C-alpha cells in the first residue's frame, strides 16, 4: 500500500468539480501551496471550500478565487482578500462565516466521529440563527455539527512514507484537524523521509489520517505582515 505520490498533480486523482475541499493554513502560514497551484492549473470549479482564511489577492486561495473556482467559502476571517469582497458583494461567491474555534472544533469532530456538540461561541449572535440552544451550568450554548470534506489538503514540515506528519511552529494551525476530516487527505511536506525516520513520540498527525503524501517543491512561504524589532 503505497501512499507516496510523485507530485501535487498526481495526488489530485479523483478530485472533481463541486466537491467539498479543505485547505490547511492560517493566513498564508502553513498553506498547501503545491496543491493549491495544481488545483489552479487543473481548472477545477465550483468547490465548496473550507479554510480559515481565503488567502490574499494573488497568493494562496486567492488564486482559486480569481479564477472563480470557488462557489462557496466556509471560513472565519477573509479580511485580507479584496477579490473575495468583490465577488461576495457581486453575488458570485457564497460565504459562510464561522467562529474560528467552532470551525476548528467542527473539523476535529468530523475526524473524531462526533456528529454534533455544544459550544458557547455565537450564542445571541447571528451565528446562532436556526441552531438549537441549550443551557449548561447556567450558560447558554448552541449545537454545532461536524464538518467533513471530500478532499483535505494539508501542508507539513516533515512527513514519512507511512503518512506521519510533523508541523513547524505556527504552521500547524488548521492542518492537523483537517488531516482527520477528509475522505481523502493529501499531505504535502517540505521533507519526505522513510518510515522509521521520525520519532514516534513526536508525530502531530498519525499516518492513519493521510491517504496521499508527496514531497513539495518551490515553497514561497509568503509573509503577510513582516514586523520586526529593528
Amino acid at each position, binding site marked *: 500500500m503505497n501512499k507516496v505520490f510523485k507530485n501535487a498533480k498526481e495526488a489530485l486523482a479523483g478530485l472533481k468539480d463541486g466537491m467539498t475541499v479543505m485547505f490547511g493554513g*492560517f493566513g498564508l*502560514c502553513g498553506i498547501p501551496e503545491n496543491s493549491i497551484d495544481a488545483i489552479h492549473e487543473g481548472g477545477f470549479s465550483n468547490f465548496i471550500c473550507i479554510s*480559515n482564511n481565503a488567502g490574499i489577492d494573488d497568493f494562496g486561495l486567492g488564486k482559486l478565487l480569481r479564477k472563480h473556482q470557488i462557489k462557496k467559502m466556509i471560513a472565519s476571517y477573509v479580511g485580507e482578500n479584496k477579490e473575495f469582497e468583490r465577488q461576495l458583494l457581486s453575488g458570485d461567491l457564497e460565504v459562510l462565516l464561522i467562529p474560528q*474555534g467552532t470551525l476548528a*472544533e467542527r473539523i476535529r469532530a468530523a475526524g473524531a466521529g462526533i456528529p454534533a456538540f455544544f459550544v458557547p461561541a455565537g450564542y445571541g449572535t447571528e451565528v446562532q440563527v436556526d441552531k438549537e440552544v441549550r443551557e449548561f451550568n447556567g450558560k447558554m450554548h448552541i449545537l454545532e455539527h461536524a464538518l467533513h470534506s471530500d478532499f483535505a489538503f494539508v501542508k507539513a514540515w516533515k512527513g514519512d512514507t507511512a503518512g506521519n506528519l510533523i508541523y513547524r511552529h*505556527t504552521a500547524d494551525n488548521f492542518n492537523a484537524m483537517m488531516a482527520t476530516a477528509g475522505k481523502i487527505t493529501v499531505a504535502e511536506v517540505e521533507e519526505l523521509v522513510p518510515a522509521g525516520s521520525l520519532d514516534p513520540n513526536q508525530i502531530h498527525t498519525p499516518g492513519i489520517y493521510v491517504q496521499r503524501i508527496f514531497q513539495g517543491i518551490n515553497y514561497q512561504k*509568503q*509573509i503577510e505582515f513582516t514586523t520586526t*524589532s529593528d
Partner: protein
Amino acid sequence: MALDKNGIAKRIAAELQDGYYVNLGIGIPTLVANFIPEGMQLTLHSENGLLGIGPFPTQDKVDADLINAGKQTVTYIEGASFFNSAESFAMIRGGHIDLTVLGAFEVSEQGDIASWKIPGKLIKGMGGAMDLVAAAKNIIVAMQHTDRDGNSKLLKKCTLPLTGVACVKRIVTDLAFIQVTERGFELRERAPGVSVEEIIQATEGKLIIEGDIPEMVL
C-alpha cells in the same frame, strides 16, 4: 486630557496579574504587551497556535512559520509551545485563558459587544472573537469612548451585529475605566484631567456614578 492609545494600554496593563495567560486582540490590545510591569511573568496566547509570544523578530530572525493571530511575524519565549487550532481554542473555550483584551465598535450596558461586522461595509469575518468573548473568564474592552463623529460607543443596546452577549466585564476608553455591572456602566476612574461631566456626555448607556470618581493612576 483624554488618553492616547498607549495610555489606554497602560491602564489595562495595571489589571494584569503575575502568572496570567492573556490573549491580546489586534490594535490597542496588542500595545498592552509593552506595559507589562517589571518582574511580572505573563504568557501571551495567540489563537493561531502559540502560547508564549515573544517580541517582534530582528530582520534576520523573521520566519514565515512563526506568526501571530494578526499574521505578523513574531518570536517565542522560553517555555513556549505550539499547537493546532482545535487545541488553541480548547484553551480559550475551556476557560484556561485568564484575561482577554479586545477592541469593539460598541458595548452595551448589559455587557454585549459588537466588534466584527458593519452590515454593507465590513465583511471580514469574526475570526476568533466570538470564541474569545463567549468563553474568557475575564474580558476587557479597549476602545475610544466615542466614534469619529462623536457618537457614544457605550450604548443602551448595541446597534451592530453582536459578537457576544453579556460578556464584557470592564472597559477602558480614552476617557474612563468602567466596570460593567448588572445595573449598567459603573464609572470607576476618570482619565487624568477628564471630568465626570465629560464622561456623562460621552456615554449613551446607563452610567452609574457613586461617590468620588478618582483619577486613573498611570
